[in-house]
Structures are given as structure tokens and as C-alpha cells.
């Protein structure tokens, strides 16, 4: 992140703030909430866009929360390289040197939200591998995957925990992350089927699927 540069995104912020929030029910969240509400001093990693609601929800219950908008971090233009075949890709090694680094921290819960669906292909497996090592044994990871029916233009959302099984969703664009880039849509990179998801989390101890009505498959994974 450039600090002494200039980036005035006030207009973008205002527009983003005005975007309507949608509400959805989440069965997987309901399971996580049981832990959040009953256990003390959990360590939580939220990989979605900065959510005051999530920070408030967790800190009010005495938990520590780390916020790291990984999707925005992945849009850093300096990560772009070419692979051996000359095709454009992202430097996953450098990405992991600069992100998901928390010395001494191990997490009870990782909130991935819809990150794997929108993250560049080159980063998905390395990121999930790193998350495995960041989770405590028995720790849980929550992720959402679109089904085929969602279509390539499925909007990217940020998620706010409202409590119980209720989430608020807010549409996000690239420019909302304040890295100086103009607002543009995050594109769904691919659709994972059940087998793909199982492979992605094959190092984890268990995986539980929840099929929702809005063409989203919720996944709760235990390390």
C-alpha cells in the first residue's frame, strides 16, 4: 500500500455507502455463531472487506478479530507476472510473503466468505494451504461457493454478521478497497463443484455442505 501517494476516493466511498444491503439466512453461520456466542476469547480471521459489524460482533463477545481484505490485496498490479508458458498470472509466492502473515497467531475461526470464487486461480490453492496452517486443529473455516446457476455475473458481496443465522450482504467493487483503482466489478473466476471443493479442502478433517436458495453452496470446514 502506498502511503504518501494521493488517492481521494470520497465519491466512491459515498456511492459504496449508499449501496443497499440485502439480508440472507445462513445455516453454516448459525453453527459458527454457536461457537462465537458460547466460547470465550476466540481468535477470528475475517478475510472479507472490512466490516464494522463483524468487528463489533466479535469484540463485544471478547474475541480477537483480524481483518484482512484479501481480494483487494490480490488486485495489487505489482503481483502480475508471466508463467513459464508466457501466460499472465499472479506471483503467489510474493502474495503469501506479504499477506496472511500473523506471527504467533493461530485462529479458531476463519471467515472466507466468497473469496475462493473471486480470487485469481493462481492464488486459490496456496491461500487455502496457508489457511490450513493458520487454523488451530479443530478450527473452523466458512466459505461460500456459487453454483453453476449463479452465472458469471454473480455479484461479489461483503458480509456483515447480524447474529443468529442472519447476514447482511453488500455489493462490492474493486474501487471500494481504496487502493486508488477505479470501481469495477469483481468477476466470478470459476464455479467449484462438490468434488472441486472437496479437493480444495482435502487436507482438512471434515467438510460440511449447506445448499442455500440463492445459488450458493455454503461450506463449513474443520481442520
Amino acid at each position, binding site marked *: *500500500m502506498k*502511503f*504518501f501517494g494521493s488517492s481521494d476516493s*470520497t465519491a466512491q*466511498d459515498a456511492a*459504496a*455507502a449508499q449501496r443497499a444491503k440485502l439480508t440472507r439466512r445462513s445455516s453454516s453461520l448459525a453453527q459458527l455463531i454457536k461457537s462465537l456466542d458460547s466460547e470465550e476469547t476466540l481468535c477470528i480471521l475475517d478475510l472479507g472487506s*472490512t466490516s*464494522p459489524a463483524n*468487528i*463489533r460482533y*466479535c*469484540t463485544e463477545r*471478547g474475541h*480477537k*478479530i*483480524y*481483518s*484482512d*481484505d484479501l481480494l483487494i490485496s490480490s488486485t495489487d498490479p505489482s503481483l502480475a507476472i508471466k508463467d513459464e508458458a508466457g501466460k499472465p498470472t499472479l506471483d503467489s509466492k510474493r502474495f503469501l510473503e506479504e499477506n496472511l502473515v*500473523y506471527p504467533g*497467531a493461530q485462529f479458531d475461526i476463519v471467515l472466507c466468505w466468497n473469496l475462493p470464487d473471486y480470487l485469481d486461480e493462481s492464488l486459490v490453492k496456496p491461500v487455502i494451504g496457508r489457511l490450513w496452517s493458520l487454523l488451530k486443529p479443530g478450527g473452523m473455516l466458512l466459505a461460500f461457493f456459487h453454483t453453476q446457476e449463479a452465472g458469471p455475473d454473480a455479484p461479489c458481496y461483503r458480509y456483515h454478521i447480524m447474529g443468529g443465522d442472519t447476514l447482511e450482504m453488500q455489493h462490492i467493487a474493486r474501487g471500494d*478497497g*481504496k487502493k486508488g483503482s477505479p470501481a469495477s466489478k469483481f468477476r466470478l473466476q470459476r464455479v467449484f463443484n462438490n468434488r472441486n471443493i472437496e479437493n480444495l479442502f482435502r487436507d482438512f478433517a471434515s467438510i460440511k455442505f449447506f445448499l442455500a436458495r440463492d445459488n450458493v453452496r455454503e461450506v463449513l470446514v474443520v481442520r
Partner: protein
Amino acid sequence: METPKTAEFAHIGKSVIIKGELSGSEDLYVDGQVEGSIELAGNRLIIGPHGQVRANVNAKGVIVQGKLDGNIRASERAELTKSAIAVGDIITQRVAIEEGAYFKGKVDIQKETTKTDGAKPVTAAASAAASSAAASSAATVAMKINPSDGK
């Protein structure tokens, strides 16, 4: 959330650049650039909308409206407004983050913090390097800035 009136705050204006350790016993409003550390135990710090701070910050209350790259330790309260871009950990008793703020780091709420007397004299030491307009801004900075010779 109401931002405190800053008329009584010591000001670091938009055109001022400070590198080094900044400490004091009065409230401070930073709208310029600070690189190093800021120690205001018992007092409040506001990083204004133009403020760009690359420092660990220790104060009673911290409000970030601009950019902060560093850890916040606020004995009472930390607040990130909607224009804030903050990278670093926050350790405080109460935290408020407005919708639209960008935050990357840890939030650790600590109910008991060590009380400080806040009786340190106001000094801004180390290598303080003012920009070309610093002379005019210096009149509004209610603290002594001593250019450092590195000793």
C-alpha cells in the same frame, strides 16, 4: 460518533513532515506526514483527513480520518472514520469503525489497561524535517520541534 473540536489541539499542518519520535502531554491533530512513533499517553490524537502517519501510536484516544500504517494502542478508545485507511493492530478498550473505513490488522479489546500520568513535556525530537511551507505551519504547532543531529 462526534469528532471532538480540534481548536484546542496542537496542530501539525498539511505541509509538515516529521520523522522521528513525537511525544507530548496535550491533544494533537496531525494533518501532515509523520514517520516514527507518536506517544501521547493521557491525551488524544486525531489523524486528519490529509494526515499520513507511518508510526506506532500510543494515546488515550485515537481517531483516524486519514492514513495510518502502524499499531494503535489507545487506553480508552480508537475510532476509524469512513475515510480512514489503517493498517496495523488496534489494542484498546473500545473501538468504533465507521462503514467505509479500510482496516487491515487485529482488533484486541482489553478491558484493563495501565494508567499513565501523561506528565511528559511536549517535545518532538529526532529528525524533524519540515517541508517548504513548514515555517508558516510551525506557528500553529504548539510544540517544540528539534531537528536531530542523529545523537
